[in-house]
């Protein structure tokens, strides 16, 4: 399967150059380039991305909080730091890998291949639904719309959508009626709770 990549980098020159190298590789598609992280989470959902390359300098001091929140919302996404300046190495701990400004093309290609490897392990690793995902699943089975679920659980709609994507990725089931059967079979819900 091809990996869908988002590049988040303020310098257009660097972002385009990196996108060019990555797009040249058969197993990657650069689906989006952003110059700031403001709408990153929505963008990940909308473009179904699974690899994020981001310059930590864009996140400033909120680096860790932002990334751990992002990681919770989108557990399928691998995060790679794009380092273009001198940086405190502790800033890089949340990332699964690092691309540096003076990496050669072949170095970037070999790193990307490694990241893609870790992605497949990441996907097969977690198959259990998290507590949050199970809650969303139950709400979906009860026939609630995304907006209603978001209001009830106090989360944003795009978080609901990303939970739903993860549920489908883990269970292999896409339709609402199929998810209802899944919830019943796994005793997450009783028949009489359904309308």
């Amino acid at each position, binding site marked *: 399967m091809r990996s869908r990549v988002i590049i988040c980098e303020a310098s257009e020159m660097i972002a385009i150059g990196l996108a060019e190298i990555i797009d040249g590789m058969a197993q990657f598609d650069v689906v989006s380039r952003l110059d700031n992280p403001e709408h990153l989470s929505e963008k990940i959902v909308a473009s179904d991305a699974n690899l994020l390359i981001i310059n930590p300098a864009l996140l400033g001091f909120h680096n860790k909080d932002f990334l751990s929140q992002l990681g919770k919302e989108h557990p399928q996404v691998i995060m790679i730091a794009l380092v273009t300046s001198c940086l405190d190495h502790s800033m890089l701990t949340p990332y699964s890998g690092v691309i540096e400004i003076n990496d050669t093309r072949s170095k970037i290609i070999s790193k990307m291949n490694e990241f893609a490897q870790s992605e497949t392990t990441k996907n097969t690793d977690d198959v259990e639904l998290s507590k949050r995902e199970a809650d969303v699943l139950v709400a979906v089975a009860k026939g609630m719309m995304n907006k209603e679920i978001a209001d009830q659980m106090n989360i944003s709609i795009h978080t609901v959508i990303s939970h739903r994507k993860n549920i489908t990725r883990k269970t*292999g*089931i896409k*339709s609402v*009626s199929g998810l209802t*059967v*899944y919830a019943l*079979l796994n005793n997450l819900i009783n028949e009489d709770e359904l309308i």
Partner: protein
Amino acid sequence: MPQKKTPFSKNTKFAELLTDDRRLLQLLPRFGIGLGFGDRNVAQVCQMSRVNTNLFLMICEIYSNGNFRPGKEELRHIDLGDLLSYLKASHRYYLDERFPHIEEHLHNIIEACGQKYGPMLSHFYDEYKQEVMRHIQYYEEEVVFPYIEALLEGQRSGSYKIDEFEHNHTNIQDTLDDMMNILLKYLPGDILPKERIEISYDIMELSDDLNRHSLIEERILIPYVESLENVQP
């Protein structure tokens, strides 16, 4: 899926077509092509069965090469009436043969599930079947096809345009895949395992077939009808 080396041609031996891709076998009844074609080539067999050879080859091509997309020029050499007959025959095959067959097996499984899981499985299937019927029978056959037939006779209806076409086969296919996941992964293992394996084969094949069916609609039917809509005043 292994990719074919060369596209099929009018001169390909008909039997060779079928050994090349066994899925093409199921196209024969839909085109009304009988068995016993001997060593004739594609053009000869099509002519004998009064089937438009270009259309037949185009559909074979979509079946065995999912990336195939006919160009505008190629589309001009097929007959839209023949395409509609083909699509209707496919619908009959799904509704009168494949679904009842799957249903029969499913009923045994539902019975074996007992009160605990039986009713919900049966509800899941009923809901699904309604969705299939709604799309194929009440939408395509009662709205879309009559519109196209009228267009062929030069009548324009103001109310419908082909770009409104509901691409509902994806849903139909998704739910079918869900059904397979439920049967294989989530129902307790001791309930009729042999029958579940058998029916899963049938479901995979049907899902694959439905996928090709929607490709035919998207890549042949819709562009063709769009060009008709644009030509007429």
